């Protein structure tokens, strides 16, 4: 039976379902999936959810005006552009205001502990300081992971090169470092990939299967992960987009612009 949704849309729905009405969602570069999820959640069950730091001035998705925040309903483009240092004015969780409670983070590598690496992949056959692939840099992800009450990891690649036992360079720390620092309860909220949904809320603090997308087997996901995944007693299947979600997705992104941006690596 053919799907009437894309993998990117499924991933977006997973995140949207987890967002709540009181969330303030910020998203940065190359995280259109976060924007899509926030808009979807706003439309379906979280009307007071706020979206910050759009950064879409540099992009050209023509999102439906009705999808955007109340202040920008007349805009034909997402152009909510905020000063890059705005996050610091009220980013600290102990501050009077809260910039955001939710952020989205990805990486060249993600490891079993939920650490991310946006710095680069080392050439292991050579000296440690030689790069096989120099990444773009971590931008504000190390601090955003601390600013925000929860952060989601996502990757449009689920393969051995991305999901590694230990990242080459730590941009955002994983549970190993966080526990050593005295933060046993701090870890990514979820990790969403084209194969499934994963989490770290377990005794081991290593990546655990929460659900696998329809058609994905445990063997397949394990073959494409560079470390042993923690398996639940019963592996759930990720719920496919409902008719309400599909309708809302069409409304917030009639031209499929958001999902096209992020999902160029997916083959649906």
């Amino acid at each position, binding site marked *: 039976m053919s799907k009437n949704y894309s993998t990117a849309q499924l991933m977006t729905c997973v995140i949207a379902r987890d967002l709540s009405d009181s969330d303030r969602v910020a998203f940065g570069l190359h995280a259109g999936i976060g924007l899509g999820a926030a808009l979807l959640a706003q439309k379906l069950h979280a009307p007071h959810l706020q979206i910050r730091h759009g950064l879409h*001035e540099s*992009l050209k998705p023509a999102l439906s005006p009705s999808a955007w925040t109340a202040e920008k309903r007349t805009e034909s483009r997402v152009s909510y*552009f905020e000063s890059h240092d705005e996050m610091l004015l009220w980013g600290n969780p102990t501050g009077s205001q809260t910039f955001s409670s939710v952020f989205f983070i990805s990486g060249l590598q993600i490891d079993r502990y939920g650490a991310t690496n946006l710095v680069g992949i080392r050439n292991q056959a050579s000296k440690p300081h030689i790069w096989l692939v120099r990444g773009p840099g971590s931008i504000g992800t190390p601090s955003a992971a601390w600013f925000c009450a929860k952060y989601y990891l996502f990757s449009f690649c689920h393969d051995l090169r991305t999901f590694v036992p230990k990242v080459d360079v730590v941009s955002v720390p994983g549970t190993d470092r*966080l526990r050593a620092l005295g933060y046993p309860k701090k870890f990514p909220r979820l990790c969403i990939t084209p194969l499934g949904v994963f989490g770290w809320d377990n005794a081991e603090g290593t990546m655990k299967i929460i659900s696998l997308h329809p058609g994905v087997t445990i063997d397949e996901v394990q073959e494409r992960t560079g470390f042993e995944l923690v398996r639940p007693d019963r592996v759930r299947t990720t719920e496919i987009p409902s008719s309400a979600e599909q309708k809302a997705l069409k409304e917030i992104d009639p031209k499929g612009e958001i999902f096209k941006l992020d999902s160029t690596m997916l083959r649906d």
Partner: protein
Amino acid sequence: MTTIITLKDIADLIPAGSRLICGGFQANRAPVGLVQALLDGPPGQFALTALPNPVPTDMLLRGDRLSLLDTSFNGLELSDGFHSSAGFRHAIECTNIGWKESDVYEIIQGMRAAAMGLPFIPAPEIAGSQYTESQYHRIHRVVDPFHGGESVFAVPPLNPDVALLHVQKADRNGNLWIEDPLYDEIILQASRLTIVSCEELVDSIDRPTISGLFVDHVLAIKNGAAPTGCRGYYGPDEKRLQEILGGTR
């Protein structure tokens, strides 16, 4: 007092060895015209502190005009996806360029400290990140004197020698009108010398976004941000940006 200059003056104003910072963010308002004027001047190398502003960074790297790059992020998100910067990757992977790297907010806070004349300033928490270690090291833990001995991260002031900025409008007193303020004010306040180009040089701006008090030199460069965009005047030229960056996705 702000002086009006021409492109020919740029290279003379910026001696080799200067630490630069450029305004702009991603595909917006990079001071391309000013950077090109610098590249067209006499040879010499500079240090660059770079916020997520890949175009000027790549221009200077490809022109072999950087001895030190202090950065947080290099790459560009365009409508067809993310493009890494080939110049940046080549410089780091294949050359001996000096480089430092940090969370972007360390750089912002460092400039804030410089602007405020502080010896250091608390910085956002990044415990556990490798940016607190070894070659990445800029940030230190200091004891919070007010809250029972807890420690916080702190960074030293970051004083660029020269800020290069492109804006929509400026007047003859250096007052600036910026439709889409980014971190422009901070980089001007932190830097010792500030040079601003504008799409339009007008007689007077009554309600400036940034006061001319922070602007040393101003000049008009039409399309001075191209191929990045300048809001209200032109959008980014994505095809040209892809050619400049020449990176892989």
